[in-house]
């Protein structure tokens, strides 16, 4: 842990090596680290942008890629209309540009390893990013921990990592995946139409082979409160429910 903390003190320059449009509002930025790090699934990086007059803007973004030997990490960034940093990434940044970041950061919202009890993941919108790192990690590590993901999205077209999740649903053992679409009816029998509530969360948790030992919830504050209360209602202890709420 000491080494990981020491590394966080250092800012490093990273080259954008690929930009992928994920949804109408979300693009993935693949950044090549100049100084490699070994992150844990669920961690984030701080990114800073510096204007010619020295003005600096800093934001935190979850790492969506799984820990690996690769020097390339993936950040899924949603374009916020009133944002300062996300419009720069969407409208200005190009492959070959250099971005400064530091990380990996965060010592709480972390995939529990080694884990044997099932894990319940609940996300909304781009809040699936740190959960995706966990799912990708579970796949890459061949851990046998059962995982269920409940993902809320406005529409089918706006589901971040949709095709990859649909593929994992069929190829990854002990992985259950359910969508809750809030702005259009769900067409798959296993998905939900409308906002999540305690009933929806209980339904998805019941798709696990045993009660979840812990839960990770990521999204807006209002969404996280509803989801976390629903997980409490399942009987999980508050300390086993880890949340990440979008800041500003």
């Amino acid at each position, binding site marked *: 842990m000491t080494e*990981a*903390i*020491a590394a*966080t*003190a250092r800012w490093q*320059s990273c080259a954008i090596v690929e930009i992928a449009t994920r949804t109408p509002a979300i693009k993935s930025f693949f950044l090549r680290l100049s100084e490699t790090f070994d992150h844990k699934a669920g961690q984030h990086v*701080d990114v*800073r*942008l*510096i*204007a*010619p*007059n020295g*003005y*600096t*803007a*800093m*934001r*935190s973004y979850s790492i969506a890629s799984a820990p690996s030997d690769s020097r390339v990490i993936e950040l899924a960034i949603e374009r916020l209309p009133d944002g*300062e940093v996300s419009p*720069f990434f969407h409208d*200005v*940044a190009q492959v070959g*540009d*250099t*971005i*400064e970041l*530091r990380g990996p*950061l*965060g*010592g*709480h*919202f972390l995939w529990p390893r080694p884990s044997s009890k099932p894990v319940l993941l609940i996300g909304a919108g781009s809040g699936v990013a740190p959960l995706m790192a966990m799912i990708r990690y579970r796949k890459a590590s061949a851990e046998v921990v059962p995982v269920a993901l409940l993902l809320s999205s406005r529409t089918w077209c706006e589901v971040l990592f949709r095709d990859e999740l649909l593929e994992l649903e069929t190829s990854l053992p002990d992985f259950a995946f359910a969508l809750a679409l809030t702005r259009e009816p769900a067409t798959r029998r296993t998905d939900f139409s409308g906002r999540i509530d305690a009933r929806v969360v209980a339904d998805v948790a019941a798709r696990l082979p045993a009660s979840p030992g812990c839960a990770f919830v990521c999204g807006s*504050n209002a969404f996280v*409160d509803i989801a*976390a*209360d629903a*997980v*409490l209602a399942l009987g999980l202890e*508050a*300390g086993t*429910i*880890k*949340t990440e*709420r*979008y*800041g*500003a």
Partner: protein
Amino acid sequence: MVTRGFTGRQSGSEPSDRVPPGQHLVDNFPVLTAGPTPRIEPADWTFTLKVGPRPVKVWSWSEFNALPRTRMTRDIHCVTSWSKLSTAWEGVAVDDILADAGLSAPTPFVLAHCFDGYSTNVPLADLATGKAMVALKYEGQPLPREHGGPARLLVPHLYFWKSAKWVNGLQFTERDEAGFWELRGYHMYGDPWNEQRYTND
């Protein structure tokens, strides 16, 4: 190094002497909490002052509310990079809590404890002499649950994770003991003006 094509949203009207480096202003009041939002009824609320393991005094909700009140309006700064100017709080100054218990400064270090198991360390020098309070009201209203109601610590000159929500006690410690986030990579002191965000900053 300058980021190609980035100018930022610099209005020029922002009072830069009130916005620490790397921070940006918000008008809303973001909520960042590591777990579910606790529900604490006044009947279940207590506040305990300890020296080491030894409880010195315990207040009920009504007893605590009878202590002298202090108001302060301060700028606050979250380590996730948002800052909010001129937030108005009312509560009980840490000085008045110590005075009511007949304590002065048994040790230089304090750990704040909370109903949800959260903790954070703050030196006594940053809590006393009018610098900090246990806040009971925000903008004239009882503190909302999502912002730590019924009571939160308010240490406005340090990053806001030090202003522990759902606080239920202060404990004097012999050494500077790391709290919840300080054990998880965040800075032991957390001065926004020196950007003390993470352990070795």
